């Protein structure tokens, strides 16, 4: 057990719906070390949000079913925790911020009160004390404390996201899960929010799981990265390992598909095909039918292998420095 704030072991989650069974998350394991930011990167439908909801105990059950796995936090498996225990954790020890700031705030409650609410829920303080703490939290996220008594609709998208961050950090959680926190925001506002998140990370030492599809955001914010494809981790390592020694063809494909990756060539190098239907996942390597390096060896169950220094890849012939080993 590598000492960390959170340890996810062999997590598998399915959605059982009318049309069939959606295998959203397949045997995912990772640790989050103290004070680090782990990035979960992948495209739509890869299963990143499902993993986050699974950790937080926020999966809609039914139709979601956790078919196996453990999530170890503070020495215990919180997948087995009852709702009362989870409520003492959420917003308090583990916080989550979601993608869409427009709909995450209660439109009929003052923003300040929404922060105070969380504080009072988890701490034995009076309303007045909570207000003081909430005002301070507002200042921490760059909002004047005078705006405590304003309704969410008076705030722009970026400001709303700051409020959401304030709510999430009000009780000084040890872990913050941020699911595409800046995707819905304009680029210049995104820059503000990312800067804020960096400052807060430094100040409070919170560990983070940052979920995004944007490799640029990963590059700027994360210490380690896990690449998710079709519900599995296909590559995991430090920022340098993933960006400089890319080993999995999918990860490589993501980099190649970025406009601006090859400066002279007008044509981009997309990954042909599309992600498999989670209701009928292919056997063996789930990326094989889109992979330019596919061989006969790929028709077997592929496990994560360590290619050195804890750089994990799910591939029989991992790339290294962009060339086949």
């Amino acid at each position: 057990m590598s000492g960390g704030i959170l340890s996810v072991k062999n997590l598998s989650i399915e959605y059982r719906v009318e049309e069939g069974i959606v295998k959203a998350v397949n045997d995912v394991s990772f640790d989050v070390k103290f004070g680090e930011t782990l990035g979960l990167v992948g495209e739509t439908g890869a299963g990143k949000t499902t993993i986050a909801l699974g950790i937080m105990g926020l999966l809609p059950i039914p139709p979601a079913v956790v078919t196996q796995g453990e999530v170890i936090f503070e020495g215990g498996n919180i997948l087995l925790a009852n709702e009362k225990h989870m409520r003492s954790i959420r917003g308090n020890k583990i916080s989550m911020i979601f993608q869409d700031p427009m709909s995450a705030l209660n439109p009929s409650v003052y923003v300040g009160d929404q922060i105070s609410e969380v504080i009072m829920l988890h701490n034995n303080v009076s309303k007045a004390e909570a207000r003081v703490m909430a005002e301070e939290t507002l200042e921490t996220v760059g909002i004047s404390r005078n705006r405590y008594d304003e309704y969410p609709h008076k705030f722009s998208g970026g400001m709303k996201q700051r409020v959401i961050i304030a709510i999430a950090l009000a009780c000084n959680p040890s872990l913050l899960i941020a699911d595409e926190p800046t995707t819905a925001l304009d680029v210049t506002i995104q820059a503000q929010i990312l800067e804020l998140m960096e400052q807060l990370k430094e100040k409070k030492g919170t560990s983070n799981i940052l979920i995004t599809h944007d490799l640029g955001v990963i590059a700027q914010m994360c210490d380690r990265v896990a690449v998710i494809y079709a519900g599995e981790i296909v590559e995991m390592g430090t920022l340098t390992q993933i960006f400089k020694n890319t080993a999995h063809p999918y990860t490589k494909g993501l980099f190649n598909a970025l406009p601006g990756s090859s400066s002279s060539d007008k044509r981009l190098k997309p990954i042909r095909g599309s992600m498999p239907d989670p209701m009928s996942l292919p056997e063996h390597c789930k990326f094989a039918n889109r992979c330019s390096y596919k061989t006969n060896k790929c028709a077997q169950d592929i496990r994560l292998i360590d290619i050195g220094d804890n750089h994990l890849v799910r591939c029989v012939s991992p790339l290294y420095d962009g060339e086949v080993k």
Partner: protein
Amino acid sequence: MNVILTVENLKKHFEVPGGNLHAVDGISFSIKKGETFGVVGESGCGKSTLGRTIIHIHQPTSGRIYFENEDITFISGRQCRDLLRRMQFIFQDPYSSLNPRMTVIDIIMEPLLIDGMKKKDARQRASNLMEMVGLSKAFETSYPHELDGGRRQRIGIARALALEPKLIICDEPVSALDVSIQAQILNLLLELQEELKLTYIFITHDLSVVKHISDRVMVMYLGNMVELAETKELFRNPLHPYTKALLSAVPSINIDEKQKREILHGEIASPINPMPGCRFAARCKHVTEICKTDDPKLMEVKAGHFVACHNI
């Protein structure tokens, strides 16, 4: 004449509860045949409204639009229908821009049938169009919701190409798609442009995409043009403070350089009943007195490089 479209001081205002919303407030530019003209800006800058006004989804409030040397600013319904044979539109959201109750082949056949083509011929042409955009014949009888975003967007492209337009306005055509699919669609658009000699207006908020696909780029802010230049020149040598902030804000995948982000502070001005003066003044590092009172005029600072700023 090499110019296919000219826009002069185009304005589009909307009556809203708070007053008059100046969505597009005096835009002027010309586009050459075969060019890809990029329009970039953040939400609320008016780029989508600009595209929709040129194609007459909205009626212009004032100004002039010339297409193939014809004044198309204020045209009747019939003239508009004629225009739409030569100018087309690709929508952003592949999930909502297709009729959920029509099959793929039906959607592509629509513009042809409406134009009076016989059903058999229309079917044949629609089939060819599907091939042209990389959609397998097997999907002819599929419904949009059965296909992924990338394939749906190909349907939208095939539909736009049906009547062989000369100019296509692309409104964020890849913004709703995943990165790996984005690349496929961008490649497709480039191929089609070469093959069919198309001219594009490419509207997007994504700077890397606009850099990749455009010949020239226009930066918009709150309804105004703030800068216009050839793509390489704009990215190498941005002059307007907003453009500089915008470029520095894009998270770079270069992990060696600690990114020096220029963070904008201050309130975003309202596009409703705007006050005179530069709209960017409240957030600008270099603001001076004149910025607060006088609208900056667009000036050609270098060959082909235009900026609207008092302090260049």
